[in-house]
């Protein structure tokens, strides 16, 4: 097998892992504040469609990314209204949001099926200008890829090094005590959901505007659920989420490598690896304190009137 194909595989793994990492980071923020979002799939779809639509209309992919981020934030506000304000069940509300996203994204993206859009520009990795052109194209990534690791560090910093993050995690552990110490659990949860939605939107934009460069219905293909799994895998920690996303893209790369080297293992079976690995890790950690889920994840904050 040639070096070129190995590099090609790694390059495509980076592309497919990036969108996932953004979404996972967003979900880490939301779950740290105590809200699990099963509607991520729908949030991503709406963002991806909005991103493509805005890019197609304006011709500016950066505006598309911005629109996708805002769309993600707004979608999460719908969930916020249901679970924070109306105190509805989080799992059911999330699933309803998912169906909402299925529909809304089909409607938004409908006119743009098969449309050609200006993709995000790709920038060659610095210091590699002397590479032959074939390799250079494989080492050229869009800006969102370069930004994803800083985004993970930023998330970590926000959650663990700022007062806002402290309050957010306090709300996720025990909203009543956070309230007693002068925080506003509802407001913090709305904020966490909005930021999380923005992250999911950026991830979806990376998928639709930078990677696929088009819109197709259900194009996220289960990434929203993978992100929820990766949050558990990374034990609600943004830096470990990087490892989770690497694992997932590693599995994708491994699968492509096997295929290109002629080994006959069904790609379907390889696709199951990230899920089964997460399950295995959960069983290993089960019963210990290392599982460290936010204590009031999924609980309704009743408030104290």
């Amino acid at each position, binding site marked *: 097998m040639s070096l070129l194909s190995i590099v090609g595989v790694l390059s495509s793994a980076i592309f497919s892992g990036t969108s996932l990492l953004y979404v996972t980071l967003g979900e880490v923020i939301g779950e740290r504040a105590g809200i699990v979002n*099963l509607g991520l799939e729908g949030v991503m779809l709406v963002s991806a469609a909005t991103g493509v639509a805005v890019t197609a209309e304006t011709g500016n992919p950066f505006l598309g990314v911005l629109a996708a981020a805002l769309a993600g934030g707004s979608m999460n506000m*719908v969930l916020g*209204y*249901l679970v924070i*304000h*109306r*105190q*509805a*069940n989080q*799992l*059911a*509300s999330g*699933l*309803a*949001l*998912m*169906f*909402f996203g*299925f*529909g*809304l*994204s*089909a*409607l938004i993206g*409908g006119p743009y099926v098969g449309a050609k859009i200006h993709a995000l520009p790709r920038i060659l990795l610095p210091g590699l200008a002397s590479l032959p052109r074939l390799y250079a194209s494989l080492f050229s990534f869009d800006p969102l890829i370069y930004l994803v690791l800083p985004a993970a560090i930023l998330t970590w910093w926000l959650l663990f090094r700022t007062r806002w993050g402290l309050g957010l995690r306090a709300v996720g552990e025990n909203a009543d005590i956070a309230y007693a110490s002068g925080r506003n659990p509802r407001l913090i949860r709305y904020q966490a959901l909005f930021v999380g939605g923005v992250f999911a939107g950026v991830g979806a934009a990376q998928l639709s505007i930078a990677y696929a460069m088009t819109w197709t*219905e*259900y194009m996220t293909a*289960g990434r929203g*659920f*993978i992100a*929820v*799994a990766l949050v*558990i895998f990374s034990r609600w920690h943004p830096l470990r989420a990087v490892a989770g996303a690497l694992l997932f893209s590693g599995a994708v790369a491994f699968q492509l490598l096997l295929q290109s080297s002629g080994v006959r293992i*069904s790609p*379907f*079976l390889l*696709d*199951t690896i990230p*899920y*089964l690995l*997460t*399950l295995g890790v*959960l*069983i290993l950690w*089960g*019963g210990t304190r290392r599982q460290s889920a936010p204590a009031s994840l*999924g609980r309704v904050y009743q408030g104290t*009137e």
Partner: protein
Amino acid sequence: MTQPPDRGSLRQLLGHKAWRTTVHYLSMILLAVLLFGAILLISGKDPIQSYKEILTSTLGSAYGLSEVLVAMIPMLLTALAVALPSRVGLINVGGEGQLYIGAAFATWAALTFPNLPAPVLLPLMALLGMVGGALWAVVPGYLKAIGLVNETITTLLLNPVAPKLIGFLIFGFWHAAMDTDKTSKFVPAARLPTFLGTRIHLGLGIAIVLLVLYWVVMKYTRWGLEMRAIWQNPQAARRNGIPLKPYLIVMMCIGGAIAGLAGMAQVSGFYGVLLLNFSTGLGFMGFLICWLAGGDPLGILLMSFVVSVIMTGGNLLQLTRDLPYAAINILLALTLFVVLARPTLIRGERA
């Protein structure tokens, strides 16, 4: 908070509250309808005409009504698959995966024994479907029962695995000569019988029987009583000699088995082949229906009906209004939002 009412005006107040709740409910449903109408209007469709078509095409004709009933079958079953485990406090979000595995098991029987007569083959397929679904649920049930991992997480994680296994089976072994993404058509003996020239199949009868059975078991049997005890306080129930772990594992498996049966009913009754990714969220829909109905059998029947009317109406809407089919999910979701955000008055004492 309001002032405590005087004794005399208590009834008046109750009446007032009930009235307000009704108005609130109706206005929010109206809101859902209006919102979707606005969306239709923006995308250049006539909302009034669309709504008229949704209603007349589903409830206005015998054929439309029969299609609604057909769509209800998997929803009733997947909702039951959530309802039964929920009676002992288990949250089964894995209906989607269990449904797929059930369908795969049933398909194996249909493809392996095409020469068996229907009275043997169909029960075998149903049984295998239930076994498959139960197998997909036994790991989460066991892990929960021994207190290792939460069943919500495990059932959710197993969902995406199931359709990939199906893909493996179809591509690797089962695909038809001309297709790569589905099996060949089942023999007639492997098809659930249909009625009156419609697509309504025996699955409907099975679902209704199971629904009634569920109601009877919960209300009139010792099992139902013990499950209610576990639901209210698992540890107290255990100290009173109720076998907690077996209950958790068995109820999870029964839930999985019913979801598996839903998968069998879909491939045997509805499609007649095993398709790749044939269920777009049926298991999740069952979860929503069960949750909105609070696990109540009549509520499940009602909610399934409402959801089916919307989905079937949307199906016909696509043919006549050239909207993407998925767009009907908006009306569905708006309706779900309304019910999820229901006035707290209905649920209890909080205003």
